[in-house]
């Protein structure tokens, strides 16, 4: 009794409830904890749910369980030393994190990676986007009750991780890129292996789709669940597939091209309803678009150096910049202040998962408890990035 008092008074202090004020011991209203240890929260996320029976009246996220102080660490490491740390934020998309960080520091130094390095970067980043979406699909489907996709996606994701491992020796925390380019030249047979993966993977997406796209249970569980309008999504700063599923055709790779994305021909898939099903379709389509980009990049990869003219000791001039990329989960930005020394004076990471998670409350109000699980899955958060 006492315990529930504490939790409820804490949660009630800020939840704006649409329901009129009810007596405290109303048997219809219940406050429960979901997490921090819960298989469907994809990490240590605690959600305080205010329920009326099965219906969700409001939520509050309690985060920070995985907070490691990445931004503080950055101020105490050199630019080069901090590079591997960014892999540990969104550990499902370490390559994207590295790309964003390296490009941000390059921008601060006012240098650019050579063309060949740009191509290698794009290939690996897009492979990582596919891997990240595969992991999302497998776990999201598992949360909703479809177990098979998990095994299929993990089986196929393995092929991407093998390419990473052969390229840089690591599967997840890749540290694939360096400031100014890439450290490693591609291994013998890299292009062939990537091309083989593309032809291997094309039928596999169809396979995932036969399992889910017209599956009646899947449709029931995802259609009109967790709807967020385009206006709400923009106001809440939501980016990535979640924003696009609400009908906003915005992708940083097109809007403000970085790396050499302007050289490639691809579409931005968008949805119309902004529900869980549309987000599913958008991500499936994105995997196909990533394959298109990879194919063009592998075929067009030029010869040449892979490291730009970057001094051994990186000391960017005094100044501050913000650089962001389209990570698999949304806009991943780095704001760096340099004081002219070898260490960043201030480094801020703009994490897509953190900002997108804020939309959870808007998306689950009025839904059932079981849908909360579906919505957490569909936002596609990684707690390592939410908490940093």
């Amino acid at each position, binding site marked *: 009794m006492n315990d529930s008092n504490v939790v409820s008074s804490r949660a009630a*202090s*800020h939840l704006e409830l649409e329901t009129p004020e009810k007596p405290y011991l109303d048997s219809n209203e219940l406050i429960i904890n979901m997490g921090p240890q819960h298989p469907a929260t994809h990490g240590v996320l605690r959600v305080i749910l205010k329920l009326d029976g099965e219906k969700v009246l409001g939520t509050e996220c309690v*985060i*920070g369980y995985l*907070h490691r*102080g990445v*931004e*503080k*660490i950055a*101020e*105490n490491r050199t630019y080069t030393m901090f590079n591997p740390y960014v892999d540990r934020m969104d550990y499902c998309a370490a390559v994207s994190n590295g790309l964003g960080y390296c490009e941000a520091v390059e*921008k*601060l130094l*006012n*240098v*650019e990676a050579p063309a060949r390095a740009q191509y290698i970067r794009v290939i690996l980043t897009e492979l990582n986007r596919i891997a990240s979406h595969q992991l999302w699909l497998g776990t999201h489907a598992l949360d909703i009750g479809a177990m098979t996709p998990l095994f299929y996606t993990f089986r196929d994701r393995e092929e991407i991780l093998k390419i990473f491992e052969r390229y840089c020796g690591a599967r997840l925390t890749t540290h694939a890129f360096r400031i100014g380019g890439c450290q490693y030249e591609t291994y013998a047979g890299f292009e062939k292996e990537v091309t083989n993966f593309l032809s291997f993977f094309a039928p596999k997406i169809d396979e995932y789709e036969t399992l889910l796209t017209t599956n009646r249970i899947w449709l029931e569980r995802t259609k009109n669940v967790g709807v967020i309008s385009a206006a*709400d999504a*923009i*106001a*809440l*700063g*939501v980016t990535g597939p979640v924003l696009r599923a609400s009908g*906003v055709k*915005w992708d940083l790779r097109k*809007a*403000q091209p970085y790396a050499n994305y302007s050289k490639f021909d691809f579409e931005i898939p968008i949805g119309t309803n902004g529900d869980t099903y549309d987000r599913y379709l958008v991500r499936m389509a994105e995997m196909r678009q990533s394959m298109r980009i990879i194919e063009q990049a592998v075929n067009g990869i030029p010869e040449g150096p892979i490291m*730009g*003219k970057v*001094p*051994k*000791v990186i*000391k*960017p*001039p*005094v*100044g*501050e*910049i*913000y650089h*962001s990329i389209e990570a698999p989960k949304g*806009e991943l*930005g780095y*704001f760096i*202040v*340099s*004081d*002219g*020394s070898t260490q960043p*004076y*201030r480094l*801020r990471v*703009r994490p897509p998962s*953190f*900002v997108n998670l*804020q939309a959870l409350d808007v998306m689950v109000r009025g839904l059932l408890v079981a849908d909360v699980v579906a919505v957490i899955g569909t936002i596609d958060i990684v707690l390592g990035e939410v*908490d*940093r």
Partner: protein
Amino acid sequence: MAEEVKTPASPPPPEGEKKPTAEKSVSPAPTAATPVAAPPSPSPPTKPAAKPAAPKAAVPAPVPWTSPLVEKYRSQYGSGLEALTYLGQNYFSVDRSLIPNFLRLLRDEEQFDYCVDITAAHYPKREKQFDVLWILYSFTRNERIRVKTQIADGASIDSSVGIWATANWLEREVYDMFGIKFDGHPDMKRILLPEDWKGHPLRKDYGILQQDQEWVQINLGIESGQ
């Protein structure tokens, strides 16, 4: 390597104070203005060649940013507003008193409808110790700008939750990490650290190994988290 050591030594290190002076001294130089127009492409070839001859010209510095947007607000706000651009990125440095209104104008009249990020930086040697920053983006303009202002330690600033809903968690994180309070925020409390934690870790006076020893001992039952 040798020239790298020399070049950053020329500008004075305190970052925020330097801006106005640097702008005046470097802006007339044509070399500083060229990278702004097309930042990425010309720089790699020119930089190494230019450095030994004239190291000072190679150091980029913020230059005044001119655009219809700036003209419009400069006449309105005068000296309270400074518009600069650095490596092709534009920002406003504004007086703290303009803050809620200027941000609202940017959203309502200039379509900066997406608040990308709110963050801060600590400069303990300055009189106004903190920079608070808003990174904004406009979908219609496809343009990104930053707005920054300076506030003193212990001072609070108006919340922008009423302008962009996303400011809620972002401002809470700034409070958590720097101790800057946002007036009018619906739920001004910590977000990443425990609520009863003492100290704000991203302040410069908070050491990298520092922690709330007492909290760790009471709540985790261990001597130290290190």
